């Protein structure tokens, strides 16, 4: 009966209740989305590279090197000579070195030149190796056939590719290119499993084929160039020593970064922005909470007679207190539900945009612990802020006039 009363009373004040609901929805949406995007971005970045102890590229800032070599954001400052790669590879503590060469594209997707070791050593997420869609690991001879390519799951999905299809690469990055390597058709040998990392949007080919389509296959090793290379060590303890060695290398200006350290640097940089964003979101929530309290409080004047009637038919003051709390709870629950729904729809619409533009993979599933905490906080805040109108109902005078 009391909940029926609360709902009918809100319906009786449709317009103001509706506006309050919208304001609550917007603030819950903002809070949930900001928090979700924040944690998912972090997770997405953290899961992208695993099992790589060091990344070496031309001298640049560690963030720039990390972003362009792993996330395909930004541009490399220079290339790295094959000699430098061999220098690192010859170090006794180095277990493996994988060259990567970026710069070409296929219909907007990055083309990565590398070798078979890439599929052997590169890991993502919680040390998961790359596998084909059929969950097979890729063999050591995957690039044995010339003009073979291995595409990420999003490439295959968005362009409708199957194993065996032929594709043409373009020179330079971007969606539209005027130089196509039309005379070299690559065959898709495998399609990778979805990883939720930029690998899903990458076309992998061999270094050899990359040189071939650029007419550089006859170049001696000495003149070969790569964009960067990934390094695996025998023992992680050697990382500082090797990093120093690379950074001090006299023949060529190089930068060596440790992915985890570079990511921590990135979070440091973003941290302040994150906090400001969160603060603004919380302020939006507070203002909509106040809006709710004001709506209820201003309605109390016109509802004085209603409160009097309820008191006279026997409602206790505490019952009226809970009636008002119930009304704001109904709005808060509806607002929370709608806010979460809008947030999910938002990420559903924009997650492909985010992953294409920024290499950030955000899932549309916002149901997690932090969302639950936010909703609990919203409900608690509603209860606290509704104390004011609810107390006004509690004190309502039932005296006959």
């Amino acid at each position: 009966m009391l909940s029926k009363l609360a709902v009918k009373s809100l319906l009786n004040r449709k317009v103001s209740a509706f506006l309050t609901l919208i304001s609550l929805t917007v603030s819950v949406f903002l809070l949930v989305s900001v928090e979700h995007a924040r944690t998912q971005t972090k997770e997405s970045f953290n899961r992208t590279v695993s099992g790589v102890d060091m990344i070496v590229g031309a001298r640049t800032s560690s963030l720039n090197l990390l972003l362009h070599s792993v996330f395909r954001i930004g541009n490399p400052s220079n290339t790295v000579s094959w000699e430098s790669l061999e220098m690192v590879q010859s170090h006794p503590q180095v277990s493996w070195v994988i060259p990567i060469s970026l710069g070409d594209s296929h219909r907007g997707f990055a083309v990565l030149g590398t070798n078979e070791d890439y599929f052997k050593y590169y890991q993502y997420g919680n040390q998961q190796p790359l596998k084909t869609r059929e969950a097979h690991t890729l063999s050591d001879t995957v690039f044995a056939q010339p003009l073979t390519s291995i595409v990420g799951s999003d490439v295959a999905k968005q362009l409708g590719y199957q194993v065996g299809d032929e594709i043409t690469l373009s020179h330079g990055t971007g969606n539209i290119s005027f130089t196509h390597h039309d005379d070299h058709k690559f065959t898709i040998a495998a399609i990778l499993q979805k990883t939720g990392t930029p690998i899903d949007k990458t076309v992998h080919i061999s270094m050899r084929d990359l040189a071939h389509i650029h007419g550089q296959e006859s170049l001696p090793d000495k003149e070969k160039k790569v964009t960067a290379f990934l390094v695996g060590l025998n023992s992680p303890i050697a990382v500082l020593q090797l990093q120093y060695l690379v950074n001090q290398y006299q023949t060529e200006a190089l930068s060596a970064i440790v992915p985890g350290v570079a990511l921590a640097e990135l979070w440091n940089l973003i941290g302040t922005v994150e906090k400001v964003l969160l603060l603004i979101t919380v302020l939006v929530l507070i203002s909509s909470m106040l809006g709710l309290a004001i709506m209820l409080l201003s309605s109390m004047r016109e509802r004085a007679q209603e409160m009097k009637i309820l008191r006279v038919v026997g409602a206790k003051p505490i019952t009226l207190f809970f009636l008002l709390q119930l009304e704001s709870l109904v709005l808060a629950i509806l607002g929370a539900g709608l806010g979460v729904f809008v947030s999910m729809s938002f990420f559903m619409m924009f997650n492909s945009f985010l992953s294409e533009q920024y290499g950030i993979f955000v899932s549309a599933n916002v149901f997690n612990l932090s969302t639950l905490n936010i909703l609990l906080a919203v409900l608690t805040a509603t209860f606290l802020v509704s104390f004011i109108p609810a107390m006004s109902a509690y004190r309502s005078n039932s005296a006959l006039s």
Partner: protein
Amino acid sequence: MTKKNDSVIEINDLRFNYPNQADTLNIKRLQVEARQKVFVQGNSGSGKSTLLNILCGVHAVKSGEVNVLGKPFHALRASQRDSIRAKHIGVVFQQFNLIPYLSVMENIQLAGYFSGSSRQLSTDIVSLLNDLTLPRTICDKRADQLSVGQQQRVAIARALINKPALVIADEPTSALDASATNDFITALLKVCAAANSALVFVSHDAALAGYFDLSIEMSSINEVAYAI
């Protein structure tokens, strides 16, 4: 709950004042028997509303004795008086008796709900509305769609649904014209008789006294008002 010839109201040496004000009421003795229909006539300022608020258990009594339905209101807490009112006292105001956005049926059910009754009241409500010569179709109408006369009669139904031992009506006819007043009082007396309820009916209009068993003038029982 009251036996035959038990008094529904018994007041002894009641003195009442609002905070920081002189006494509003000073009643030596007042008694209303079960099923008695009492008319209390008084002009504004005579203390009649204050008296009704005390009888309803809204105002706390600090000096003197007020026994309502055998319960010592002067000794009970506000919440105890609230639940006695919910169960055993029906109240009709001057006007705006109903919650405007609820249907007639829901308004009456509300009184049943707060009295703690778990009975299905709809058949009682329909027969009560019938006794009050209200059409059956009125049940599902919103209260604010009714005429003032209809609203007042629905208020009677609301006050009587729990078959209270005492019904208190505060100037219930002041918004009605002469013929509607007559219909209203006739209907009220009829349903009070059917429910064995005592009735305390307060009005400034002395012409209504003829409908009741007993007529009391505020000025004759309230010594404060007399002194003014």
